[in-house]
């Protein structure tokens, strides 16, 4: 953030709301986010259609998650098509994640695994969106769609974490009780250097370093997101 104080807004009416054929990096960002939306939508759609998987007490939460991910999937798909590009097709997902959830088949009694998967895909979603904002910055309409979805990913992540007795925010790079493959979703969350400021040094009486890591979500690069998504490929 070295340019913080000298920076002037580069925005002009000509650059705002541009929705014609987007630059390559904008489309690449949207295609990556589309993969996140496919993953989340597939998980929640299958969870909702399963028999006796989600307990009645949590049914409203899961129908909300499914509804959100469907709408977000449409938004990202539309963002791609209005930029005259073709959305990549949805992969077929393996929700055992190459056997990390052995035998997981959206079956009765497998709710704890579904809850873990929900936490993984939502925290992944938050970090994937954060990682693409820079690429979207020149296309304000796409940027606005992404930030409007980002904060809802944050809401969804907090809810699915709290539903399973975990705090709504990420402490350090802790994956908690999740399987080892999920560590890639949390690596880097321990960062405390925000711009020119080491926030851990300011957090003494306010949760110290743990609080400093909780207070900021962290981006994942495209390569990191792609590697994690590959684990879900069937």
């Amino acid at each position, binding site marked *: 953030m070295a340019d913080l104080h000298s920076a002037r*807004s580069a925005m002009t009416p000509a650059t705002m709301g541009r929705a014609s054929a987007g630059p390559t990096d904008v489309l690449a960002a949207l295609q990556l986010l589309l993969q996140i939306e496919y993953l989340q939508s597939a998980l929640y759609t299958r969870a909702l259609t399963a028999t006796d998987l989600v307990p009645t007490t949590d049914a409203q939460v899961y129908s909300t998650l499914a509804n959100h991910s469907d709408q977000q999937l449409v938004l990202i798909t539309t963002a791609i098509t209005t930029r005259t590009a073709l959305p990549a097709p949805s992969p077929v997902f393996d929700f055992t994640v190459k056997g990390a959830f052995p035998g997981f088949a959206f079956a009765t009694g497998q709710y704890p695994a579904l809850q873990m998967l929900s936490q993984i895909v939502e925290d992944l979603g938050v970090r994937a969106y954060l990682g693409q904002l820079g690429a979207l910055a020149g296309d304000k309409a796409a940027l606005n769609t992404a930030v409007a979805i*980002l904060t809802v990913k944050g*809401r969804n992540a907090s809810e699915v974490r709290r539903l399973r007795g975990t705090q*709504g925010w990420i402490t350090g790079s802790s994956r908690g009780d999740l399987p080892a493959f999920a560590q890639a979703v949390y690596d880097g969350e321990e960062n405390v250097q925000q711009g020119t400021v080491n926030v851990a040094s300011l957090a003494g009486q306010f949760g110290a370093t743990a609080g400093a890591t*909780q*207070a900021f979500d962290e981006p994942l690069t495209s390569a990191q997101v792609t590697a994690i998504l590959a684990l879900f490929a069937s």
Partner: protein
Amino acid sequence: MRIELGSLSELHAAGTRRDFLRLIGLGGALVLLPGFVSACGSDDVTGIPASGEPFVIDFSDGDPAILQLAFVLEQLEADFYGRVVDAFAQSNFTTTEQALLTDIRNHEAIHRAFLQATLGTSVAIEVTPAYSGLAFNDRAKVLAFATQVEDLGITMYNGSAQYVASSATLTVLAKIAAVEGRHASAIGDLLTPRTGSFAPRATDGLSAPATVGAALQENVVDKIGMLNLPAIFLGGPTTNG
């Protein structure tokens, strides 16, 4: 919203702040945001909204103006949750809820300190929050206000992103916004557990700086002025205006 330059005495008082001197020198168009003075009685905790010393956020400064707007919001959030935590001994929050609200207090205090350090002490304008008779020991009232302030933070960060020139600043503000989303969800779930209240919509709103300023003014003693507001505001999938 009205456009005014205030009374002579107000301008004189304003002269104590650097930006007002510059404003008078430039003769720029200033927006002083409306307060709700008449609605507030003697039970205000720290003072009457919009009754205090004026200050100006000048959007021709670029990214520092967005950081300053965020700093006002984070000061309000940190102060609010700080008072909630301080009132725990007299309040009806469960132990679990107290731990959650303490975490949120910590996060907001860290956000406040981060923005202050990033802006630098000479640029960061400290404000005095105001609460119109808010009972900090009353669970329902605290959670209602918390929802309001978290939602305001989310729409502020989301609506401001389009004006941020630095990619690094864009991302760091979004890192905070995502955590505000986590907070809003937790607060919503405390209010009505295991419903859709953790996330009322599939997309959060975007608010323009003037809209955010007007909302903040209801809980800030200092009189918020905005100069050179961006001419264009581009909404999102759901726009708060």
